[in-house]
């Protein structure tokens, strides 16, 4: 046998392999060195991201709400920086960028030096033209055309996009966000980020400075971007505009209009408003302080704030009484002589003259407090809490917007924790029965509840998204199923409550009797809620309309505006009239007649300062 020593084999293989590597290195570095040097100097081989176009947002008749417009952006490639002081001066002069900020930006991206860093976006075109000549001195800078968002009108539901920040980048960069990406910060832009953003593409850039392909790669292999889906909302721009103009100037509050059959929100107004477009540029300190003034224009009063509901809560108390068979629709409770004595305290009714002895329908009509005080004595607090939540009040509705407030309804446990062992539960229940005390709701919850009353007791999750358009047509149910839920009330209970609401708007003596719509029947409830924010009550009016057309529910809420019937009612009336087709042209905001500024006051006791209604939890910010 031909014996070869293994060591010889090892040496032959070793020598062959190293000869091969040396030869390859010689060819690469010595023979082709100049060629690769040129490629390296031109820096032209790289992967470039092609940003997908973000989906636009439309109202339900496909009229634009949020669109994309072209923008000019300035980018920096930090690896190409030669003369840092000159660059810093140039940027400070033209873009107001401080040198320290620039250095920090470069430092943050020191291991991404080949990536373009967005320095300034939405630069006016005139400025781009003026600067483009000087740009030759700064090869590290480049203008690129991109898109930015244009919000058609101030609103609180679209939210806005912004540059991805470090925290978001750390969290999402696995999902293919670049360091320059824009990401939804609030509202629908945040909630439907996944649908809106699309999928970025990639292209391999392999051309030399004369534009010739370097032919380093067999096929170009680029991935075309997939544009984001457009959103079609349930919002009606005409109605939104009308409601916006009908809203009394200089008032704070919210209006929600809902389609009772679908749960779609037709109009979503929170006032004072802000223009999301201001976030598309660098925000100046003046605008910033304007956005953070005491009226809180950034606060979405529809879902981000919870308020004492006042008398619009009474249908829930009433239906609980009916459901638990404590009363029926004819039961007459204590005589209202402007108030009622419970234990050692006297609880007043808003009407000092008194309502006399009433049944449920009449109590709802005149918004008699005493009837509900008396009823509350028979209720268990925790049952009351559960029942309110089963009516989807004081729980999150699950609307397709981020950070919704839950609202609040106290339980016995909660009282025990906050007040200690000794407290008079009866007095608490009395207050809660008329929507005062600790109970807090959002205007959206009230609107959804009234909408459910209109829809034969079927509660439908309020939502803004109707469908998507673009490469994928998804209905809202396909994106995320809409929750539907039957309210816990029998047909006869529902009928009694509906009759009560009918009486409010249609029978003489009803607190909302002045809200009239020709050709339609209005069912509504007024509310004037005592609160810790000011002397004047919050004005509530929540109603639904029955016509041949699809029915709608409207909730008008005004912070510290006065009585529900007087202030909020007329606005709701205008909206309902507009929807019913009785007002063709929008005229001007409704001036509030001075005689309506104070009436219909629900005067509850204010004898115990620490038990002041709606002081704990605070009505404006987070018990959530």
């Amino acid at each position, binding site marked *: 046998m031909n014996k070869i020593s293994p060591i010889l084999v090892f040496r032959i293989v070793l020598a062959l392999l190293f000869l091969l590597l040396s030869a390859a*290195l010689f060819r690469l570095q010595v023979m082709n060195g100049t060629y*690769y040097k040129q*490629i390296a100097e031109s820096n032209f081989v790289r992967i470039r991201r092609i940003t997908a176009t973000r989906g636009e947002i439309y109202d339900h008749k496909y009229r634009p709400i949020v669109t994309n417009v072209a923008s000019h952006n300035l980018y920096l490639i930090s*690896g190409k920086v030669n003369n840092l002081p000159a660059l810093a001066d140039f940027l400070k002069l033209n873009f107001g960028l401080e040198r320290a900020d620039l250095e920090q930006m470069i*430092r943050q991206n020191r291991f991404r030096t080949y990536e373009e860093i967005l320095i300034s976006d939405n630069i006016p075109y005139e400025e781009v033209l003026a600067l483009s000549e000087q740009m030759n001195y700064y090869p590290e800078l480049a203008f690129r055309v991109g898109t930015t968002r244009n919000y058609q009108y101030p609103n609180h539901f679209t939210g806005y996009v912004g540059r991805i920040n470090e925290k978001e980048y750390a969290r999402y960069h696995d999902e293919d966000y670049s360091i320059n990406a824009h990401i939804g910060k609030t509202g629908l832009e945040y909630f439907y980020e996944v649908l809106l953003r699309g999928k970025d593409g990639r292209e391999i850039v392999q051309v030399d400075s004369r534009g010739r392909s370097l032919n380093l790669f067999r*096929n*170009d*292999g680029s991935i075309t971007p997939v544009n984001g889906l457009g959103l079609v909302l349930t919002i009606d721009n005409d109605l939104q505009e009308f409601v916006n103009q009908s809203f009394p100037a200089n008032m704070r509050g919210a209006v929600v209009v809902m389609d009772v059959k679908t749960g779609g929100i037709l109009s979503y107004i929170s006032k004072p408003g802000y223009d999301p477009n201001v976030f598309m540029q660098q925000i100046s300190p003046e605008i910033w302080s304007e956005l953070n003034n005491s009226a809180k224009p950034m606060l979405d009063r529809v879902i981000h704030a919870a308020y004492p509901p006042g008398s619009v809560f009474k249908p829930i108390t009433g239906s609980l009484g009916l459901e638990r068979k404590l009363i029926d629709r004819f039961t007459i409770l204590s005589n209202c002589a402007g108030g009622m004595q419970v234990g050692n305290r006297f609880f007043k009714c808003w009407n000092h003259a008194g309502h006399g002895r009433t049944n449920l329908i009449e109590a709802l009509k005149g918004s008699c407090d005493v009837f509900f005080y008396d009823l509350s004595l028979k209720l268990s607090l925790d049952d009351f809490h559960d029942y309110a939540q089963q009516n989807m009040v004081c729980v999150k509705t699950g609307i397709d917007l981020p950070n919704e407030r839950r609202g609040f309804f106290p339980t016995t446990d909660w009282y025990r924790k906050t007040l200690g062992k000794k407290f008079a539960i009866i007095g608490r229940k009395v207050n809660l029965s008329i929507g005062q005390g600790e109970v807090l709701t959002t205007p959206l919850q009230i609107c959804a509840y009234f909408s459910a009353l209109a829809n034969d007791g079927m509660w439908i999750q309020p939502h803004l998204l109707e469908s998507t358009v673009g490469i994928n047509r998804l209905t809202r149910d396909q994106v995320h199923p809409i929750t539907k839920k039957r309210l816990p009330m029998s047909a006869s209970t529902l009928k009694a409550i509906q009759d009560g609401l009918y009486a409010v708007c249609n029978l003489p003596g009803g607190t909302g009797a002045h809200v009239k719509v020709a050709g339609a029947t209005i069912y509504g409830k007024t509310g004037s809620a005592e609160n810790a924010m000011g002397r004047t009550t919050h004005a509530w009016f929540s109603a639904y309309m029955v016509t041949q057309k699809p029915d709608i529910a409207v909730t008008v809420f005004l912070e510290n505006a006065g009585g529900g019937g007087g202030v909020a009612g007329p606005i709701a009336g205008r909206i309902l009239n507009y929807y019913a087709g009785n007002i063709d042209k929008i005229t001007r905001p409704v001036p509030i007649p001075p005689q309506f500024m104070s009436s219909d006051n629900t005067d509850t006791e204010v004898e115990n300062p620490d038990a002041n209604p709606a002081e704990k939890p605070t009505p404006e910010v987070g018990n959530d």
Partner: protein
Amino acid sequence: MINRKKFDFTLAALLLLLILLGCIAIFSASSSKIGDNITSMNTWWKQIVFAIFVIGIIVGLLRLPMPIFDLAILPLYILNLLALVIVLFTPAVNGSHRWFAFGGINLQPSETAKLLTILMVSRIIAKEHLTEFKQILYGFGIVIMPVLLIVIEPDFGTTMVYWIALLAMLLAADVPLFYVLLIISPVVSIVLSMYWLAVIIWILILIFLLIRFRLSWVAITIASIVNIFTVLIMPVFWNGLKDYQQNRILTFIDPTRDPLGAGYQIIQAKIAIGSGATIGKGWMEGTQKNMNFLPEHHTDFIFSVVGEEFGFIGSMFLLLVFFAFFWRLTVVIGELKVRDRKIAAAGIFAYLMFQTFINVGMNIGMVPATGIPLPFISYGGSNLVINSLAVGVILKYLNERGFMK
């Protein structure tokens, strides 16, 4: 028990030189230069800490009594297999389950398994009474266990290392060359099956070699038929694959098909090395590196940094140091007379050489990207510690010469 007369200073010096070159390259690779500002990641001093640590471990190993060392291998091998099983249940990093993370230090059990498997195999197949067939069978049996576990991770590149080491060990165990030839012939046939001319030449060479080894005509006929059959069955098998599976394999063979994935890195490495030209751009001056085109340039693509900054002269110098190191290993293998130690040394030699070749070949675009680091040079604790430890084992064997025989 470091015996000065027997300690191999040449090998140790070459090892230290390689580690030192690695630290220099890593310092440059982990820094980036913008204008006149240089910023470094902390990788380079971590590497120095690992280097000092590994020297300590080798000294400890040399002092360890031989019987304890011999006894420890089987339990360690079994523990390592267990670790390979457990690592499959860790959260995936970049889509594969390879690492244990302990407070910033990542342990990769497939790295330690290389050395332990080599030591295990050498122990088993060195036994005198075994037939050649049994040597192959046992060697195969020991290697297949870690290989299967590593394939599940998934990490195909690493498994190649095991087969190459096994082949070298069989050679060192005096298994005739034709056995090795017969084992690898179907693999070669599969690789070449796309080119008919290459297949015909390969089969002719195979038959010629087998005749030279004086095999019976029956054996030669069977070997040829098996190989031709393999070649013929390949197109059938190939057409049975789905499009994306075909693409995946083609990309593995030719990464430039996939410019956005592995191909991008290889092309960028090639540009970096090529642009270094003859004398290079100077330490810390690599523009491709500074522009950070290569995300992994301090680990798998460290050679591109050397090539770019020190040019042909620098990369040849590094290659020659490697060549001297491996040549010294072949000399040393000849000096080891205890059978299982000699086999182990051959396995270690083959595994280090194969990794070096694959890594450098990958950097200059000769072989597909596999994720195998450059021994002693690439950043990474596991890589440095295990490879140096493997050399340490050879140093220990040399140190123990004459005690047993």
